[in-house]
């Protein structure tokens, strides 16, 4: 018991010593940190790109650390895993939606992080730091976009307001709350109507009611992008990063619009599991993931906005994220922990006022 405690303490001390040296990325491999850690994050396209641009380079810098990437499903499922393993965690680092990691933070499932442990914290945008409070910060920024069929929407979509165009009747896929796309859309429509969503969403709900008859589905499945490429619908709400990739894959069939009326960030945070088996390696990985090299590589590959302010992103890639100065100006700040307190209420208003306004 004492021996285990001692070795843990030694590792912590070691980590404190090692971490700053991890700063010197791209130079001599760090062999002081070793062992295996389990990283839990999204499956599919995210996993493929994250392994290639972050996990593998990290393992080259830290040749004695093995990172097992475990696709954890939805953020809620990842939280479930963390909850179930509270007393004997089998995971070390979890990347999940900020609105869910907040719950985990509240339940003491994740570690508080300081620049002493994770020096990259000092390089983050203030809002990236704020997204996790004292806990794991934002590791990716994404934002709500409108995606549309460039072959069947003429002229191309340029504003949020165009959704109300009668020619799109029955052609929309809108993810309603509690899906956070629906929450984000509410914020955007409120802004479009000149209202402050923190005061009232009445104007937004009023406008969304008018939109309801145009909506074919309030729960696009598997997702809006697929339904558009199928020809089932013409416009949907979506997330920028995935939309950008599908835009490229579909040779431009899928159009992506960050509406001039504004958009809202979706934030993924990176979280260190409390009581994980290899804290040193977990902190080293978190530090690397937040560092300039990883942030640059992942943004350029998948068009998630960087959270590291010093990352040198290529202008071409940057323009397709929300991080370009022009796009940044359009972003509407949302405090997701505040959102958690009004979500049920918004949810009910959507159901009773917006969705009910369409045909049963």
């Amino acid at each position: 018991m004492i021996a285990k405690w001692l070795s843990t303490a030694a590792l912590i001390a070691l980590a404190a010593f090692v971490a700053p040296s991890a700063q010197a990325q791209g130079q001599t491999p760090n062999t002081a940190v070793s062992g295996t850690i389990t990283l839990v994050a999204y499956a599919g396209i995210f996993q493929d790109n994250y392994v290639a641009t972050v996990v593998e380079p990290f393992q080259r810098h830290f040749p004695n650390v093995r990172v097992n990437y475990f696709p954890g499903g939805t953020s809620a499922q990842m939280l479930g895993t963390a909850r179930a393993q509270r007393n004997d965690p089998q995971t070390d680092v979890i990347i999940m939606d900020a609105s869910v990691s907040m719950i985990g933070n509240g339940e003491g499932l994740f570690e508080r992080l300081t620049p002493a442990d994770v020096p990259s914290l000092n390089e983050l945008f203030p809002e990236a730091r704020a997204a996790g409070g004292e806990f794991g910060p934002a590791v990716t920024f994404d934002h709500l976009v409108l995606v549309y069929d460039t072959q069947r929407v003429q002229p191309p979509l340029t504003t949020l307001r165009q959704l109300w165009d009668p020619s799109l009747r029955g052609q929309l896929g809108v993810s309603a709350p509690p899906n956070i796309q629906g929450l984000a859309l509410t914020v955007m429509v409120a802004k479009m109507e000149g209202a402050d969503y923190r005061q009232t969403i009445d104007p937004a709900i009023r406008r969304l009611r008018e939109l309801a008859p145009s909506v074919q589905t309030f729960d696009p499945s598997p997702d809006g992008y697929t339904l558009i490429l199928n020809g089932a619908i013409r416009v949907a709400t979506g997330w920028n990063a995935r939309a950008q990739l599908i835009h490229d894959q579909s040779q431009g069939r899928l159009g992506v619009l960050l509406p001039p009326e504004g958009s809202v960030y979706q934030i993924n945070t990176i979280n260190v599991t409390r009581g994980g088996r290899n804290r040193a390696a977990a902190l080293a990985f978190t530090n690397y993931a937040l560092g300039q090299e990883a942030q640059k590589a992942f943004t350029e590959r998948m068009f998630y906005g960087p959270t590291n302010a010093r990352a040198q992103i290529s202008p071409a890639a940057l323009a397709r994220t929300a991080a370009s100065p022009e796009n940044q100006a359009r972003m509407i700040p949302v405090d997701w922990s505040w959102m958690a307190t009004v979500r049920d209420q918004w949810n009910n208003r959507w159901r009773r006022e917006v969705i009910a306004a369409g045909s049963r």
Partner: protein
Amino acid sequence: MSLLRRPGMLWLALPATAVLLFTYVAPMFGLARMSFNRTLPGGAMQPDWTLATYAEMAADSFNLELTLNSIQLSFTATTFALLLAYPVSLFLFRTESRFRSLLAIIAIGPLLVNGVVRVFGWIAVLGDRGLVNSALLALGLVSEPVRLIYNWTGVTIGLTESLLPYMVLALLAGFGRLDREVEAAAMSLGARPWRVFVRVTLPLSLPAIVLGWLICFILAMSAFVTPKLLGGGRVFVLATQVFEEAVDTVNWPLAAALSVYMLVLLLLFLGAYGALTRRVER
């Protein structure tokens, strides 16, 4: 019954009991336990022994709406499934065709297809550019597509179809008392085919109808994939709400409380069924 009274025979039930205990009873207790935990304002869950979640559930009138929606949808889909499956089952029960087993397999074949795949099949058939709408448009019967999915109509159609194989199986299992000779007797006594059906066939298949209806009603009440995928976010029932609370909102105590509520609801239906069959048997 008498088998179980022999002491040695009780052991035969042991493996099944053990499996049920681990796969069903234990998780049920876990679920019930979860429903007594507390949800803090930020969404964090705190171990507790509180009825706060149940109080919250009872206070939300939307849950009553969900209950009525669930019952109405299940009632409609189960009844449609019964009306469609009854003639098919009766035919299968009676046919002396050598293709009988093949026909039976075709009737229950959809069970072999994953539920999600089946739903996407329906989307292909009922969608705006699906089979039905293409036909209607081509025939000039409508000028724009009829909305057959992403609403209650679509969910009712999809759910009815998903219940059909279970209904056919339940009816075939319950037709034990049907006897061609008894129907022949009725006919020889002067009953026309329709009266034979009303006075003899139907009453004798009542146990099958009640059994099939109950099984399918329970399946419909707990059906989640079809309302979720075909409902287009417009169809709110208890099962989809449990999913939403568990996965989107991450309010597990509420999801658990809703599940317990559904379980109690279904137990009530089972009780009513028991009372009803005792009357039918008599």
